[in-house]
């Protein structure tokens, strides 16, 4: 009532100020409000507790009945379960061993409390699919009717003993879904091993024909029978046969690396360094152990050793020899030993492709049907060389005479072909194309081989180097004996008179014996669909965050990773050092670090002994550039750089960061060499919004740390000549 008055008082002046009609309206509306208020009050008053007496009784009766009903139901269910349990036990004891079809799997349930993600492992449901019949009867505080075959229970206390004990000691592992299943008659019990990884200590028990019954603490003798075997979900097919076929495939790998290239190996090494006793499994579809790719288009071609193609070893300028394989076979352990060996190790499963990835179950399926479960997974599948559409469509005769260069077998095949044919044409003017052209060009005189290189750009490395350097590079490649055809767009390739005929868009015709297509790399993202991973539409590859993570427990590194670079933005990099850096980073993050991509990777190219450069960051010729050059002396060549730093391959002095201080060599000063070229050595800065995002060190070596620092700073420098001073380009 008071409120009413206050309102009225407020309105009064307003009312007075307006016309009579308004006044009357206002008054009317106020009165109406007033009445409503009163009515509301009354309504409130009427909804007191003093309801009708009869209603109460009804209420009590209803509640009572419900309680009674619940009680009766609960009792019935429990006793029913008990009966069924007893029957089942009798059954199991009496049942003789039978074939797989009639097998019954007894699965147990792993403690998985939903509210505490850290304490207990999240559990899985019975992986038993037909033909195995599952029965697990679980009951706990909430009496759930038995659901078949899926059983889930939230267990207040962990089931002890043969339980999968937690991996989650370190919070790094949010969930480890470890599937446990025992198929009764299957004699092939997975190896009973005690593995001691800190991340996943899985305690296994012997798998017995009759399941081990572990009475849970729950008094009601709930039939929780389990045998925990850590293994892998038995494949849906007949268990006996499949286990025999996949006997060399481990069923579980704490660290699973898909792909056996540079990124994968770097990750394996990183994991092993950080997680003592880690068990790492690399699965690769190649038949080779992990190896490095750059020598396949560079050093191996320059080697004097005639057996280099076989041994894949090469001697460097300073006589130091190494193999392209990262490690000899004795470094690795066999996949079957992976779970058993004391201190863990790295095992490589060759010739197998991962075709399906089940992220929910944390397992993958191989091309031969085997399944492997994992805790942490790295996808480092790299890519496959792109082909020109015109060649794809050109028919088998053309395809037979085309090489898509990427692997060891491609190198061996091309090396053999180079000795047999008279003319080879390389399509593509980028890194691979130019390097192969130089490599083959050097052999051209000895072998009587014609080497042609064609590309749509105006010069070699046209998309990477500014025009003046691209022209300079093209001249150098020509000097190596290559016939370069620029502005060449291939329209058609056909097989005629035992030769390949390439027709260009502008009408030119080139006849050759063999074609090498070096027109880019298509990242392998076949697992995206089954794994539910995002694929980047701009750059291709799996889309991952700055820490290289795609989803929980899945990381991607190397050529296949489209990652977020905090400094330079989202990109995908197809270089060797990036594979090493990203592989190493992924390995660190898989073992608990949360580091973003920060150490900028570099790349390099040696187009013969006289032309060499190192580069870092975004090196795109479409960006504005500033180049600072000095005159070069004979000392400024890649050959001299390796001699001075005392390392094998120049790539190693950077990527392996050998802890050897560089010694200044006291060699006799070289005779003064008159270089006609203006661009002997220097530094080229690539700018984006006035910030240096990329640097090319042209015939200037061992300065990469400075370049890396400048990119990391990301500053706008007023005078790039001052920045160039930091590189001391006139010194060695």
């Amino acid at each position, binding site marked *: 009532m008071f409120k009413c008055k206050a309102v009225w008082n407020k309105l009064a002046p307003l009312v007075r100020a307006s016309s009579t009609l308004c006044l009357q309206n206002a008054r009317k509306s106020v009165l109406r409000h007033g009445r409503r208020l009163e009515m509301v009050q009354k309504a409130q008053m009427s909804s007191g507790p003093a309801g009708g007496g009869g209603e109460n009784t009804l209420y009590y009766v209803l509640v009572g009945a419900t309680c009674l009903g619940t009680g009766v139901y609960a009792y019935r269910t429990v006793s029913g379960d008990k009966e069924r349990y007893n029957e089942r036990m009798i059954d199991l004891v009496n049942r003789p061993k039978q074939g797989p079809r009639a097998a019954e799997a007894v699965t147990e349930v792993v403690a998985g409390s939903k509210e505490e993600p850290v304490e207990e492992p999240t559990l899985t449901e019975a992986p038993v699919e037909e033909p195995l019949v599952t029965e697990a009867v679980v009951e706990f505080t909430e009496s759930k009717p038995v659901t078949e075959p899926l059983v889930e229970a939230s267990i207040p206390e962990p089931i002890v003993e043969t339980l999968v004990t937690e991996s989650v000691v370190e919070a790094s592992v949010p969930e480890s879904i470890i599937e446990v299943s025992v198929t009764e008659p299957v004699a092939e019990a997975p190896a009973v091993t005690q593995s001691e990884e800190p991340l996943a200590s899985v305690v296994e028990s012997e798998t017995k024909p009759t399941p081990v019954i572990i009475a849970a603490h729950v008094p009601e003798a709930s039939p929780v029978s389990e045998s925990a075997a850590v293994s892998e979900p038995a494949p849906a097919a007949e268990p006996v046969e499949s286990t025999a076929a996949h006997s060399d495939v481990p069923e579980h790998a704490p660290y699973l690396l898909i792909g056996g290239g540079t990124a994968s190996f770097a990750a*394996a*090494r*990183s994991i*092993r*360094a*950080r997680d*003592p*006793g880690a068990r790492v499994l690399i699965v690769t579809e190649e038949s080779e152990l992990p190896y490095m790719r750059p020598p396949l288009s560079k050093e191996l071609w320059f080697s004097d050793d005639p057996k280099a193609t076989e041994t894949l070893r090469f001697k460097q300028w300073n006589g*130091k*020899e*190494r193999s392209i394989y*990262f*490690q*000899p076979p*004795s*470094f690795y352990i066999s996949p079957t030993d992976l779970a058993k060996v004391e*201190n863990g*190790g*790295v095992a490589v499963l060759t010739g197998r492709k991962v075709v399906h990835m089940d992220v929910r179950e944390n397992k993958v399926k191989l091309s031969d049907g085997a399944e492997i479960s994992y805790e942490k997974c790295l996808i480092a599948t790299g890519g496959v060389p792109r082909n020109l559409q015109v060649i794809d469509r050109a028919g088998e005769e053309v395809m037979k005479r085309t090489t898509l260069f990427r692997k060891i077998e491609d190198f061996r095949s091309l090396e053999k072909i180079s000795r047999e044919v008279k003319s080879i044409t390389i399509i593509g003017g980028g890194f691979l194309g130019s390097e192969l052209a130089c490599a083959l060009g050097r052999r051209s005189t000895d072998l009587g081989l014609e080497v042609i290189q064609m590309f749509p750009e105006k010069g070699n490395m046209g998309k990477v180097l*500014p*025009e*003046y350097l691209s022209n300079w590079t093209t001249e150098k490649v020509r000097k190596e004996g290559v016939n370069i055809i620029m502005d060449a767009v291939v329209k058609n390739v056909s097989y005629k008179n035992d030769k390949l005929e390439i027709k260009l868009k502008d009408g030119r015709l080139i006849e050759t014996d063999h074609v090498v297509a070096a027109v880019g790399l298509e990242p392998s993202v076949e697992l995206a669909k089954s794994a539910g991973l995002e694929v980047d539409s701009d750059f291709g590859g799996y889309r991952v965050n700055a820490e290289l993570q795609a989803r929980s427990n899945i990381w991607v590194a190397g050529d296949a990773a489209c990652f977020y670079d905090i400094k330079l933005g989202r990109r995908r990099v197809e270089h060797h050092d990036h594979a090493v850096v990203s592989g190493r980073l992924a390995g*660190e993050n898989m073992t608990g670090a949360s580091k*973003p991509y*920060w*150490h900028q990777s570099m790349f390099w190219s040696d187009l013969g002994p006289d032309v060499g450069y190192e580069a870092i960051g975004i090196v795109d010729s479409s960006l*504005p*550039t*500033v*180049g*600072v*050059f*000095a005159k070069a002396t004979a000392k400024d060549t890649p050959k001299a750089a390796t001699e001075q730093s005392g*390392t094998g391959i120049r790539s*190693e002095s950077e*990527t*392996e*960061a*050998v*802890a*050897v*201080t560089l010694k200044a060599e006291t060699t006799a000063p070289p005779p003064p060499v008159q270089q006609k070229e*203006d661009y002997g050595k220097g530094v080229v800065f690539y700018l984006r919004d006035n910030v240096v995002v990329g640097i090319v060190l042209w015939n200037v070596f061992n300065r990469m*740390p*400075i370049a890396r*620092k*400048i990119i990391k*700073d990301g*500053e706008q*420098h007023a*005078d*790039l*000549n*001052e*920045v160039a*001073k*930091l590189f*001391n*380009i*006139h010194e060695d």
Partner: protein
Amino acid sequence: MSYLNIFMSKDRIIFVTKEDHEAPSNAELIEDDPNDPYEDHGLILPNGDINWNCPCLGGMASGPCGQQFKDAFSCFHYSKEEVKGSDCVENFRSMQECMQKYPELYPQEDDNDSAPSGGADNAPSDSVPTSSPESTPATTENPAAS
């Protein structure tokens, strides 16, 4: 004498002689934070621990004898004896025993402590404990800070 060559509007080229670059640079670089968690560290981490993931170690800490290597090197690193590492003989011995089982990975040279070279990955050619790993990564990482 240096001169600017306005070659194209997009790509500038500057030629410099040695004299042009004699004066020290006035380009400003940002001070590096030694405790930056994102940075890669050399052999020794800021807190004094050994960085087993350092590329300078090659594959020593990750190979089949990785555990023995780690034990031996850790012992050496934390050794407070007068002759550093003299209390670690046992560790080094077991490391050597292990390495002898993998001659391909750890070729036995005259200097028995030396890390593998050649066939295996490239690790430092002189023995790890006696090289100066701390200074080298520092110099390679922060050349401008000097």
